[in-house]
C-alpha cells in the first residue's frame, strides 16, 4: 500500500465521517442534557432536502446550509414542544419525528430528485495540504468540513471547559437538584434539543450539497441511527464521538477499497464492516463501568416537570 493510497483513504475517511460527526455532536449535547431525541434521521433528511431545494433555486449554497439548519431546528422545536412541553414519552416522540421527517422530505423533494447541482468544491490550502499522509485529509477539504472541525472544537471546549457545559451535564444528571439550585432545566433542555436539530440539519445539508450534491429519497441511509448508537458507545465523550465517526468513515472506505482491489470476500460481509468495527472499538473502550457511569447522563429519557 503506497503513501498516496493511504493519503486518499484518510481524505475519504474524513469526508465519509463528517455527516456522522455533525449529527452525533448535536445528539451528544442533547443527550447530555437528559433528552433522548430519536428523530435524528428525520431531521437530517428534512435538512438535506431543504438545503438542496434552496441552493438549487437560489444558486446560493450557504443560504441552503442556513435554511437546512433552520429546517432541522424547526422539527426539533416540534419535538421539544411535545416531549418537553407536554412531557410525552421521548422515545415515541422521537420515532414519530423520524417517520414524519422521512415522509415530509420525500413529499417535498419529489420534484427535485436527480436534478444536477454544483455543490461545495474542495478548498485546497497551499503548502499545508502537501504534508504527507494527513495534508489532504485536513487541508484539501470543502468549507463544510472545515466548519465541522471548528464546530467540533467549539463543542469540546464548551462541554469540557465552560460553565455552560457544566450546566448541561448537571441538568442531564439530576434535574431536581439542578432546579433546586435555580437552573432553568427546561430551557437548557430545549436549547440542547434545538442545537441537536441544527446540527442534524447541517449534516443533512452536507450530504445533499457537498458529499453527493443531489437529492435522493432516504439519502441519509440510516446515518441518523448510527449517530445515535455512536453517542452511546462513545459513552457521551466528545473525543470518542470524533473517533467513532471517523472510524466509521474509515471502515466504509476500506470496504470500497477492498472491492476495488478485488478481494474475494462477499461484498455483503464487507458492507457490515463499518458498523461492526465502530461498535467493537467503542465497546472495547467503554469497558470500565465506573468511568462509563461518570459520563452517562443519569436522567436520560426521563420526562421532568418543575415543582415535583
Amino acid at each position, binding site marked *: 500500500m503506497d503513501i498516496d493510497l493511504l493519503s486518499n483513504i484518510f481524505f475519504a475517511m474524513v469526508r465519509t465521517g463528517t455527516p456522522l460527526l455533525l449529527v452525533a455532536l448535536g445528539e451528544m449535547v442533547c443527550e447530555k442534557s437528559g433528552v433522548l431525541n430519536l428523530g435524528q434521521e428525520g431531521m437530517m433528511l428534512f435538512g438535506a432536502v431543504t438545503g438542496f431545494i434552496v441552493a438549487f433555486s437560489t444558486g446560493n449554497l450557504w443560504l441552503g446550509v442556513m435554511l437546512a439548519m433552520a429546517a432541522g431546528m424547526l422539527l426539533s422545536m416540534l419535538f421539544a414542544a411535545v416531549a418537553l412541553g407536554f412531557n410525552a414519552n421521548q422515545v415515541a416522540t422521537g420515532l414519530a419525528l423520524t417517520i414524519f421527517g422521512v415522509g415530509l422530505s420525500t413529499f417535498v423533494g419529489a420534484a427535485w430528485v436527480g436534478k444536477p447541482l454544483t455543490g461545495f468544491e474542495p478548498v485546497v490550502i497551499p503548502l499545508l495540504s502537501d504534508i504527507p499522509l494527513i495534508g489532504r485529509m485536513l487541508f484539501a477539504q470543502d468549507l463544510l468540513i472545515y466548519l465541522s472541525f471548528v464546530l467540533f472544537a467549539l463543542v469540546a471546549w464548551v462541554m469540557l471547559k465552560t*460553565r455552560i457545559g*457544566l*450546566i448541561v*451535564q*448537571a441538568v442531564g*444528571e*439530576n434535574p*431536581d*437538584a*439542578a*432546579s*433546586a*439550585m*435555580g*437552573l432553568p432545566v427546561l430551557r437548557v433542555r430545549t436549547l440542547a434539543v434545538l442545537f441537536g436539530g441544527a446540527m442534524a440539519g447541517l449534516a443533512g445539508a452536507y450530504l445533499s450539497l457537498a458529499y453527493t450534491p443531489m437529492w435522493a429519497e432516504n439519502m441519509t441511509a440510516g446515518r441518523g441511527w448510527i449517530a445515535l448508537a455512536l453517542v452511546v458507545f462513545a459513552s457521551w465523550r466528545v473525543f470518542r464521538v470524533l473517533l467513532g465517526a471517523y472510524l466509521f468513515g474509515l471502515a466504509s472506505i476500506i470496504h470500497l477499497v477492498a472491492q476495488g482491489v478485488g478481494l474475494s470476500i462477499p461484498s455483503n460481509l464487507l458492507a457490515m464492516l463499518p458498523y461492526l468495527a465502530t461498535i467493537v472499538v467503542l465497546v472495547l473502550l467503554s469497558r470500565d463501568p*465506573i468511568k462509563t*457511569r*461518570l*459520563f*452517562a447522563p*443519569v436522567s436520560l429519557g426521563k420526562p421532568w416537570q*418543575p*415543582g*415535583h
Partner: protein
Amino acid sequence: MSSSTPLARLQLRGITKRYPGCVANDQIDLNIQAGEIHALLGENGAGKSTLMKIIYGVTQPDEGEIRWHGETLKMRDPSMARTLGIGMVFQHFSLFETLTVAENIALAMGRQAGTAQQLEPKIREVSKRYGMPLEPERLVHSLSIGERQRVEIVRCLMQDIKLLILDEPTSVLTPQEADELFTTLRRLASEGCSILFISHKLGEVRALCQSATVLRGGKVSGHCIPADCTDLELARLMVGDAQGLETRHAKVSGANLFLQVDQLSWYNPDPFGTSLKDIQLNVRSGEIVGIAGVAGNGQDEILALLSGEQPLPKREALRISFAGQPVAHLKPDARRQLGLAFVPAERLGHGAVPDMSLSDNALLTAFQQGLVSKGLVKRSKVVAFAEEIIRRFAVKTPNAETAAQSLSGGNLQKFILGREIMQNPKLLIAAHPTWGVDVGAATAIHRALIALRDAGAAILVISEDLDELFQICDRIGALSSGKLSTLANTLETNPVEVGRWMAGQFNTDAVLS
C-alpha cells in the same frame, strides 16, 4: 397581626398548600428574626418539607404570603431565593455525582464562582474555617454520605447568606462533629445569619435553638422555647402521644456465635474508597452489635463484603462465616438462604426500587418465602405479604400498590426493615436504620430490632448515631480508617470513649473479649 417586634427577616402568614388528597400545610405562621436559630419540629408527613420547599421557592403556596424583611413577595423559584440569600441543605442531597466537589459548588454559585483556580483555595479555606475538611477535586460519587453533607453545607456558606435552612443536618455526624457544626452555626448566627434548623434529635434542638415551631398534621401545634422544655414535652407536641419514647432497652449477652469475621482485609481498588485492615468481629445469636464511626471510614466496604455484594475469592472463604460455615465467597442470594437479611444505607435505589410498588419491592428479597412457584409469581400471596408488612410495622401508605418513592423516609424504612424481619433471618445487618427518620418511626424501628433480637437473631447495626447505638446495642465498637476497634459491652463504655475510637485512638492489639 402586626406585631411590634422588630421587622422579622422572614415572616410566613397563613401559608396553605393542598395536594390531591391531603392538605400538606394548613394556615402556617412562622417568624424568624435576624441572627435567630429557629427549630422546625415535626414528624414525617407533618408538612415540614413542603413548608421548606415553599420558603425556598421550589413549590408555590395556594394561599398565604411570604414577607422578606417586611416586604411581601412571591418566591418564584430557588434562584430567586438564592439571590435573596436563602441557602438550603437538603436531606436527600442535591448533588451531582459525576461532577467534582468544586464543580458542584461552582454550579450553585453562578457567575461569581470564578475559575477553578480561584475557587478551590476558597473552598479549602471555608471548609477549614468551619471544620469540615473537603477535597475540592474529588468526584462526588466517591464521597460518603457524611462527606456529601459537608459539600452541601459548605456550598451554602460560600455565598453571602442571610437564612440557612438545614434539614436533619446532624444525622451523619459524630457527637464531636455535631458540636463543631453547632459552633459553626452559632458563629453564623452571631454574624447575623438566621438559621432554620430541622431535626428529630430533641436534645440538639434544645442545646442549639432559641425558639421552635412544632408542626403536626400540617398545622402549627405549638411554639416554644426549647431550652425551657424537656425532651418529653417537645416530643408530645410533635406526636401527641409520647409513649415509650425514652426507653433504654435491657442489655443481653447473646447465645452462640453466629457471624464471625476473622482477620478480614480487603484492598479497595477505588482510589477514593477505604481499604479494610484486619477486621475482627463476631455477633452472637440474640444480641445486637453496633459499629459506630464517621461515614467514609470503611462502612460501605464492610457492608458490601458482609452482604455479599463484594464476594471474596474462594481461598478466602473462611474470612466470613455464618454459624461456622464459610460464606465469604458466596453471592448475596446464597447468603440469604443461610439466614442473612440486609437493610442497606440507601433506602431509595439500594433498599427499594423507587418506581416499583411496595408489593413488588417486597418480592425482591422475599421471593424465597413461597411467593414464587415454578418460576411464576403468586400475585395474591405477594400482595398479602406486603399488606402484612404494612399492618405489622404500621407503614403509612394508601395501599400495597403505592410506589416506594412516594413514601416518606421513615415509612419506607419501616417497610424495608419489615420486609427483612418477616423473613425470620438468623442474621440481620442494618446500616443507618433510622437515618433521617422521625422520632415515632425511629422508636418503632428500635422496638422491632429488639423484638427480633429477643427472638434469637444475631443483629449487626452500623450507624453514625451514637445515641441510637447506646440505646439498642449490647456490644459496641467503632470503625476508623478501615480498622475496627475491639468490641466492648455497651454498659462498660460511654460515648466519650467510643468517640475516641471513632477518631482512631484504639489499640488494635488488645485482646478480644
